[in-house]
């Protein structure tokens, strides 16, 4: 498979034929072969382009995997897969830009972020690491601040991404944060069997995924706040805290209004969703 054929196949991602792993493996093997040849010729520009194609293939595959996981209601698994997509897109961002988005990477970036906003995860573990010794992934030397090896983190050398490998560190603390740099560390309570308890409400993610016919149907979401009928909050006593989250007593807050002021999500499907998609009212603290 030559490079033109590889790029044409990657541009055909909307047909999502390489969820068939044989096709994906063929493309991957072809990219690796061309990259080895380019490195042998010391053709750094071609090797870098092939790294881009390799990363695009990875992003497409993982995005399609995440969509399958969402369809199968494996929400936390899909969340982690989407995080892999986000990280890989961040690496690619510096080296690749396409005006016509022919490989759908811009689409994937936008929609990955949108899927993330649907999730009820708002609190994460965050370790603070004191990095004492760090290695360059390209030359293997210990990073020296005064005499650097010359390899720049995030650049591509011989078709490989230059990164830093932590070889000696202390964990200073573990914090709870709302905006982690990596989103894998979702908080779960521990069940009797020692495993995590999935106590989160994934209704909104489920609703959006059921409204999509393919992973590449465009959709968007906008958030507002509207007043929801008091009948939805009949379990809340007038002396309880107001369900709007103001911190005031219900009686002194929204109970005096026509409804409770709560977040409201409006989902826009560019391709009409399946007719059997039920109407949906959504309300939660966001």
């Amino acid at each position: 498979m030559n490079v033109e054929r590889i790029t044409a196949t990657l541009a055909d991602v909307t047909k999502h034929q390489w969820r068939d792993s044989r096709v994906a493996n063929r493309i991957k093997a072809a990219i690796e072969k061309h990259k080895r040849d380019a490195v042998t010729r010391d053709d750094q520009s071609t090797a870098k382009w092939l790294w881009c194609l390799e990363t695009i293939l990875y992003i497409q595959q993982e995005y399609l995997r995440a969509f399958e996981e969402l369809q199968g209601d494996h929400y936390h698994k899909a969340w982690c897969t989407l995080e892999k997509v986000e990280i890989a897109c961040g690496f690619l961002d510096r080296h690749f830009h396409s005006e016509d988005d022919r490989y759908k990477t811009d689409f994937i970036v936008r929609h990955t972020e949108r899927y993330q906003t649907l999730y009820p995860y708002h609190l994460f573990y965050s370790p603070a690491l004191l990095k004492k010794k760090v290695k360059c992934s390209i030359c293997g030397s210990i990073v020296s601040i005064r005499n650097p090896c010359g390899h720049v983190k995030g650049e591509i050398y011989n078709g490989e991404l230059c990164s830093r490998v932590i070889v000696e560190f202390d964990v200073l603390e573990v914090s709870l944060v709302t905006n982690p740099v990596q989103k894998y560390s979702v908080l779960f309570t521990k069940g009797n069997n020692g495993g995590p308890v999935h106590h989160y409400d994934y209704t909104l993610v489920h609703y959006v995924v059921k409204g999509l016919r393919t992973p590449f149907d465009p959709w968007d979401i906008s958030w507002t706040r509207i007043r929801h009928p008091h009948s939805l909050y009949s379990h809340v006593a007038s002396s309880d805290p107001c369900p709007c989250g103001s911190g005031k007593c219900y009686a002194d807050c929204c109970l005096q209004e026509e409804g409770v002021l709560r977040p409201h999500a409006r989902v826009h499907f560019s391709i009409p969703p399946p007719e059997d998609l039920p109407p949906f009212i959504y309300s939660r603290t966001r």
Partner: protein
Amino acid sequence: MTFSVESENREGKIVLQETDESLATWSCFSGISETLQDELRKANVLIVPHVGYGSREDLVYFPRGTEELLSSLRNASDASLDVDICADDSTYQEIDLHSDILRIAQLVVAHFLSPVVVDLVSTFIKQQLGRRFVNGKVISTIVLSETPTGRSIKIRYEGPAATYQSALHDALESLRTGSGSIELPETTARDGETA
């Protein structure tokens, strides 16, 4: 009376304060060798460490990305810059905080270079955040060493990456004119957000 001005809005905060820190005080920082101290005295832009983290009051560290910041400032085409870092290889260590805020290492800068350094740091922020620049947050501290009034001023900014450059230039202008007031610019509302 000690000089101090601050401005805050719903997105961020900028504080200008008089400080005892300067290029001179940092170039004889106790944690480095005398040979290195001689080197640092030649610098007009110094990347300096944070001292103390939580209960570890003596911990000396730099934030993640300091290696790239040093490289970025040194590669800048401005010949008037002599950039160095207040650390040697045996003591250099970084803290990775994992919260999605870009923390820039503290800079101590000869005051006349501050506009150039602000622009270089802004470029660095854009490079680091890539497409996250629009919604990204940044924390940065720059000390203007020995301004014409004889005092050093520390500018601490915590807020949107998108308004960093304009906020810092406004602060520098306010110091230059002695207006004594600053106003933090606001970003436009993000897509999909409504009041």
